[in-house]
């Protein structure tokens, strides 16, 4: 099964060098293990935009968005046998944040791709 991981956080600062290093090593291991297919970090909100439909009207809003609290910082795509593996991988990833960036709070959401 293919899974999308999306990391959201209210923290706007960049990760500590230790966390970056640990994430890099984890990513390297997961690529070599054939589980991680793709990943990427996202630029700050100011570089983005939202195209919305509200009350039947379409509007384009440039970032940053004042009302945004949790911001998507990055994503990854994994191929795994099932949800248990997907959760185990997310737990390991989040443990790195706990270990190497004390005080950081956020969410790693994982969702299975639609398909067979």
């Amino acid at each position, binding site marked *: 099964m293919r899974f999308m991981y999306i990391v959201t956080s209210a923290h706007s600062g960049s990760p500590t060098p230790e966390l970056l290093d640990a994430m890099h090593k984890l990513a390297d291991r997961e*690529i*070599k293990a054939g589980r991680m297919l793709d990943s990427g970090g996202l630029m700050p909100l100011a570089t983005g935009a939202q195209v919305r439909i509200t009350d039947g009207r379409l509007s384009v809003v440039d970032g940053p968005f004042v009302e945004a609290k949790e911001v998507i910082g990055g994503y990854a795509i994994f191929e795994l046998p*099932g949800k248990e593996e997907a959760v*185990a991988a997310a737990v*390991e990833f989040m443990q790195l944040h706990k270990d190497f960036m004390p005080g950081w709070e956020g969410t790693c959401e994982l969702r299975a791709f639609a398909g067979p």
Partner: protein
Amino acid sequence: MTAADAHRAILAVWRIEQPRLITSLARMLRDVPLAEDLTQEALLAALERWPATGVPERPGAWLMATAKHRALDHLRRRRMLEHKHAMVARDLEDEQQAMPDLDSALDDDIGDELLRLIFTACHPRLPREARAALALRMICGLTTEEIARAFLLPAATIAQRIVRAKRTLSESGLAYETPRGEALSERLASVLEVVYLVFNEGYAAARGEDWLRPQLCNEALRMGRVLASIAPHEPEAHGLLALMELNASRTAARTDAAGEPILMLEQNRALWDQFQIRRGTQALGRACALGGAGGFYTLQAAIIACHAEARTAGDTDWSRIAGLYAELAALVRSPIIELNRAVAVGMAQGPQAGLSIVDPLMGEPALKGYHLLPSVRGDLLHRLGRYEEARAAFEAAAALAGNRREHDLLRRRAAAAAAAAMSP
């Protein structure tokens, strides 16, 4: 969390951690079968302990510590038996030093170790089926029961294969090392063959009743990605990965809602997985860039890429496919490849050209009883308007088809040819 949930969660952690556990223990013990036994003991300990205590915060480190303690115990016992008491204390001290820091598990680049492990599990001295079972167990972390279900075999059969293979490895005193030079490509061929065997076993099942059968495709793909990333200079590793990614990209389109197979040319190409096709063509590009365009797997991947890149069946570049099959046929003499070449030539240059390749195959002993030979011939004859001969060919093919669905399809084609023969 129910006991079953806990069990599944533990096996999930296991699959992630197990290759690193085996490689670390193999490095300590210089004995892969023993390393495998002891990591299994660590798994059993976790299955016993964790449902009650919960999964520890660093499950990988827990498993590693447990497995290493077993390994140290073993070394200690073995030393005692060897009456080298005086040595024991000092050696054990050295080993403790050599043990990597458990908390820095991520610092441990296991690429080379893993490659060595794969070469051992897929040693050419082992029968192919045994290599496949060992690889699934040691590299993918599947249990004996899971492997048995995936191959539709009794667990006892797989267990026996594994035991025998491990005994062969132990008794033959094979060096635990990564082969170099000439030996490397020969040994790599033995690994790639196993990975492809596992893939095809799963691919043939398409949508098995048991998810574990199609799961074999994913395990093979994963091993293929592992090989391509830890042996990045080997073109055929990329070629095989490309072939598997490109074939797997059609999974959603291969059967209809009732599970009936759909031929490639009739598949809904919107259902082909473009993400996977992109990965496949990238791997193919790497294989070719490394000078491997003429390799066995790379050539097959290049053929499938022709299909993957065609927006419609009508856009297929059949002359390129025919040329690639000619290259493949020159590389490996195989009547099946020749038959495939006939299909491509029949599409590129017309049915008569295809038929002139098929007809000499009719006396080929290896294809006696192979239903696709008369089936392809029937198709070419039908297109030439030789309906009566086409009918006879489809009838012959139907009689040989082992699969009921294929049998029915061939009977329908025979009936269509018969009807065409009757009409003025």
